[in-house]
């Protein structure tokens, strides 16, 4: 019987019905302290520290604070120090503040090469779906499950249903992976994929870089999906090759032979399938307080269709009919696990090069990891951003969720490359608009949203 990529990975990891083996468990400071406490109280150990990796990202200041003990915010400091202590006690490798390998958990996994095709990966973070871009099955889990995985290296999970989103046509000029996924969520709604593991497919997906694919899978959860995945191919293999945790030499060749079999067979049946016309998409901008409240850059703030829309417009300080391109911005944030990889920074730098950030705008770039930061600096991207008036920061989640000092003030309008425009996400009363790195960069220069397709 023809089977899907998801079926294959699921079948290979079923220890018992409904019990899935976890190949890699990523851990961060916010969702793990209570899990380690639970282990301690029950006298349990971490079953596979060698398949577990921790980093500090959500709370870490991005101002260059060198070590956890110097974090100014007391609660943040305690949380990061608690992570370090727990990892030391249970033998889990950790890249904390100050490590060259520290960064957003979903950026460091792929960049270290610990994210590989065919694996099962979990993390106490809903954007774990990012890793599915490599043809792995990656779930976000809660803290009780984190404790369960630490203790047993397995996850109790009923097999989700399968869904395929197939794209037709090519992306137009100036339209990116971010626009593709925002447009998709706009069409299917924030719960369109609830209960499903989603496979993204089609020629557009095959042509995307690994960074673009990660952006897509990252936001699967914004459509309600349990996980997002993309079949691995040459692009995937070349990305993994040579990274610190990648297999070497003959082992790598052997691994590639295996990974190449990870495809959905022709004739496989999905529980649900939708087709999205990629060619019809323009650059996207969200106007509301959920990721499916999104429209084209060339469009206007839509008429509210529901009470939540009305609430959203009120919160966002918008009225129906306002042209998106007339929205003035106070802040621009380029960063987060959706768009803070080297490719994202290159694309934004290309737009910014030789220009100045509008005087009314406070703009910042936050690389996804210390390694991305180093590489960007080696390429001179930092100089481009700084010359334009951007603040060039140190790796972390930063203003994606404002658990650290990077937050927007009440009423401030933000163009953000992150993934959530929820009320208060970037600071109480802050108004977030989600866009691609290119669109965010151009918006920083003009002080308002512009259509990147005809902006010169």
């Amino acid at each position, binding site marked *: 019987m023809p089977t899907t990529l998801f079926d294959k990975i699921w079948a290979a990891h079923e220890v018992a019905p409904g019990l899935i083996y976890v190949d890699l468990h990523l851990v961060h400071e916010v969702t793990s302290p*209570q899990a380690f406490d639970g282990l301690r109280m029950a006298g349990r150990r971490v079953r596979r520290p*060698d398949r577990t990796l921790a980093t500090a990202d959500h709370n870490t200041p991005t101002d260059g604070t060198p070590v956890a003990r110097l974090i100014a915010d007391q609660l943040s400091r305690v949380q990061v120090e608690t992570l370090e202590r727990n990892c030391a006690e249970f033998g889990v490798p950790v890249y904390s503040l100050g490590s060259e390998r520290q960064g957003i958990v979903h950026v460091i996994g792929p960049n270290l090469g610990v994210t590989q095709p065919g*694996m099962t990966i979990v993390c106490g973070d809903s954007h774990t779906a990012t890793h599915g871009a490599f043809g792995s099955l990656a779930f976000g889990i809660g*803290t009780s499950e984190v404790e369960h995985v630490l203790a047993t290296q397995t996850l109790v999970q009923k097999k989700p249903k399968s869904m395929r989103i197939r794209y037709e046509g090519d992306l137009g000029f100036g339209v990116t992976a971010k626009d593709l996924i925002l447009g998709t969520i706009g069409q299917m709604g924030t719960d369109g994929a609830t209960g499903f593991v989603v496979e993204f497919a089609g020629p557009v997906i095959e042509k995307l870089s690994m960074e673009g694919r990660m952006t897509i899978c990252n936001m699967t*959860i914004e459509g309600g999906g349990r996980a997002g995945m993309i079949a691995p191919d040459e692009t995937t293999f070349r990305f993994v090759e040579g990274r610190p945790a990648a297999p070497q030499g003959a082992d790598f060749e052997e691994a590639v032979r295996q990974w190449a079999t990870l495809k959905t067979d022709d004739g496989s049946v999905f529980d649900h399938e939708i087709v999205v016309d990629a060619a019809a998409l323009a650059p996207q901008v969200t106007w509301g307080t*959920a990721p499916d409240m999104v429209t084209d850059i060339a469009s206007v703030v839509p008429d509210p269709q529901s*009470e939540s829309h009305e609430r959203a417009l009120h919160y966002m300080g918008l009225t129906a009919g306002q042209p998106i391109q007339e929205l003035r911005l106070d802040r621009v944030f380029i960063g987060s696990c959706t768009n803070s990889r080297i490719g994202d920074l290159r694309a934004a730098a290309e737009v910014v090069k030789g220009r100045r950030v509008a005087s009314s705008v406070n703009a910042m770039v936050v690389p996804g990891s210390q390694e991305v930061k180093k590489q960007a600096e080696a390429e001179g991207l930092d100089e481009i951003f700084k010359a334009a008036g951007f603040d060039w920061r140190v790796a972390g989640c930063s203003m994606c969720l404002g658990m650290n000092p990077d937050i927007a003030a009440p009423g401030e309008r933000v163009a953000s490359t992150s993934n*959530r425009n929820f009320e208060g996400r970037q600071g109480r009363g802050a108004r977030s608009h989600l866009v691609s790195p290119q669109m965010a960069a151009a918006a920083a220069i003009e002080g308002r949203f512009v259509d990147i397709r005809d902006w010169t």
Partner: protein
Amino acid sequence: MEPFETITSRPSVLMRDDVDTDQIMPKQFLKRVERTGFGEFLFDDWSREDGWDLPRTQVLVTGRNFGCGSSREHAPWGLEDYGFKAIVAESFADIFRSNCTKIGLLPIQLDRATVESIADSDSVQVDLAAQEVRWEGGQASFEIDEQIKHRLLNGLDDIALTLQQGDALSAYESDRERSGPVTTAL
């Protein structure tokens, strides 16, 4: 986890759709390393709005796609600490639903009309064993995974249950010695 017993309570109503976990438990409270005491921070931003009224009862009644967004279990912890034992909604986000069942908070999915009728009632009874919700003027059955139901009714610990399958787990591990990445060797 405490065994889930039949409860009778006044419903506490929050008729909004797409309530995300950032609203249920705003990020500033995620810095705590404790597992308890989250109830007082529940809906911290919204609770400052005029007309906000969410009594501390045992049953929360709400709209569609409740608990979407972040995987933070701090959201169910807050709801539980606030006093809720069951949440009746038109639908739930996946991770949130699963997080609830891990701590003994029962998610009950019912259609919109039923949810609204329960919201209008003065008292509602939740009977997990019978998989039934009863209120004056109506009753409805709800679906739940058998295994989860068993675990909730008996207050069983998931980890202990899995460790009972230790042999299968060890066999799996030795059978398929994985060549995957070894994080301790990096």
